[in-house]
């Protein structure tokens, strides 16, 4: 569990909104090819929202029509967000690689918590998000979750736009 202070550091709504509003390419480490797995849900959603999704999974060649790479260093293009679907212990090595390839952010998915890795990414100047789902956060701030009755906490009298 994160403390309130850590939540302010690693789950800040402003950081999350800025990140999702500016990112184009998301490398998903540990993405599963199985359609019922949560990671596959997230990848499918991010693709439909217009992001470029790069699977990082050494066991398969392709997921959801996207070429899969064995590790972050093999990816031939710039990565904005490294989204981690691996167990917490794996986050240290993945974070090192993310820093090495010049990613802007390291995102540890819901229920994955590695505070040392998060602190290391922050110290290297990357945005660190911990214990949050990138799909849920996107759905909240662009209003998609509104369609299924969820509390987006968006209060505005302005006309609708892409991100709030």
């Amino acid at each position: 569990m994160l403390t309130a202070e850590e939540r302010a550091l690693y789950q800040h709504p402003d950081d999350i909104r800025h990140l999702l509003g500016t990112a184009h390419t998301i490398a998903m480490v540990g993405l599963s090819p199985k359609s019922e797995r949560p990671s596959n849900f997230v990848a499918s959603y991010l693709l439909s929202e217009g992001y470029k999704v790069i699977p990082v999974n050494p066991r398969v060649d392709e997921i959801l029509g996207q070429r899969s790479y064995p590790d972050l260093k093999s990816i031939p293009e710039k990565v904005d967000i490294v989204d981690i679907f691996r167990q917490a212990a794996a986050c240290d090595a993945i974070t090192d690689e993310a820093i090495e390839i010049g990613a802007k952010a390291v995102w540890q998915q819901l229920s994955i918590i590695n505070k040392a890795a998060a602190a290391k990414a922050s110290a290297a100047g990357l945005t660190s998000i911990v214990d949050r789902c990138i799909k849920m956060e996107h759905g909240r701030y662009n209003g998609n979750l509104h369609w299924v009755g969820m509390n987006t906490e968006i209060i505005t009298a302005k006309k609708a736009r892409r991100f709030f």
Partner: protein
Amino acid sequence: MSQRKKFGFETRMLHAGHIPDAVTGARAVPIYQTTSYVFDDTDKAAQLFELKQYGNIYTRINNPTTAVFEERMASLEGGTGALATSSGMAAQFIVLMTLLEPGDEIVASSHLYGGTYTQFEHTMKKLSVKVHFVDPTDIKNWEKAITPKTKALYGETIGNPKGSILDLEAIAALANDKRMPLIVDNTFASPYLCRPLEYGAHIVVHSATKFIGGHGSSIGGVIVESGEFDYSHYPTIADPTAAYHKLKFFETFGHYGFLMKARAVTLRDTGGCISPFNSFLLIQGLETLSLRMDRHVQNAQAIAEFLKEHAQVEWVNYAGLTDSPYYDLAQKYTPKGPGAVFSFGLKGKSGEVRAKGKQFIEELQLFSHLANVGDARSLVIHPASTTHQQLSDEELQKAGVGPELIRLSIGLETTEDLIWDLEQAFHAISR
């Protein structure tokens, strides 16, 4: 780091859940009176059906007007999301259908709306769910009734016949200790007078027909969930769902898991959806909720005090009166006022008082005689001559609604006019 402005209750009553449309800029919430929605393309349609994308499919599952009502209720109750239903009865049924399996049990307060009692005692029994009813005023009664099969605790913020106030913190602590959710019917308080999630409850249900709407024009219900409960040991929420390609709702949707399952499976399969037009009307009600509730409780307090002093009144059950056994709990959980629905007893000899009650109702000019509460107009009912007329005086006493009991739902009329009406009816029956 900048912090987002936290807007107040009244602001959220008017704005939460509605962003003016990008094309038309419509300021009022539009009524989307449509059954279905054209898909962008086949891939997008497939994603919607697999719950990989959020969007509109069919109004039995979701609707843009209803979504405004839902998000607004979630905001006002302080929950992670909401699900609107065709009625309050449907709301509580969908909660239990989502949570429970045959053989499960729940422990419920015995101070419940009669319709809820019947649903729990008879309809849930058909589904092999056993409900243990307990006197809610002592936490030991709750503890004693819990068995290894118990999956939830259930009560009403302001209990329907007796006006009792649920000790939310104590019962929520017990629920957390036993790793089971506390479900609270908050109909009589509305989120303006009490927000049970703030005291640790996990799920709130409403008959929105009552104070949420306020106009007495629309039947509707709503479920709000806190997002704070860990459902990983609830097979109904955590285990693979056959109807969705073995999807695990809790693992996939986290704190939205319960509500996603309630919508995509229970609401879809039971059909207890609300009409978009009713959602629109309930939204109109919400926009004035705080103003109405302040006046409801102000009038209720004045009427309760008037009755308390009246020579023809035996007793008054209103937790806003200092001699009520629930006064202290009301001060804690409903400091703005313990609602506007309460009962009082007419003085009279047994054997005669039932006829007096009947006559009292007939003499009232301003109070509407009907079976509802939470209308902007004042309402009255005498159970012994209507809903419970087939019971003997002894049976009535046993059911907690004696032949002398008259239930009032105090509306927004001029206070003096309501007192005038009661006074003239008392005068008429004393002749």
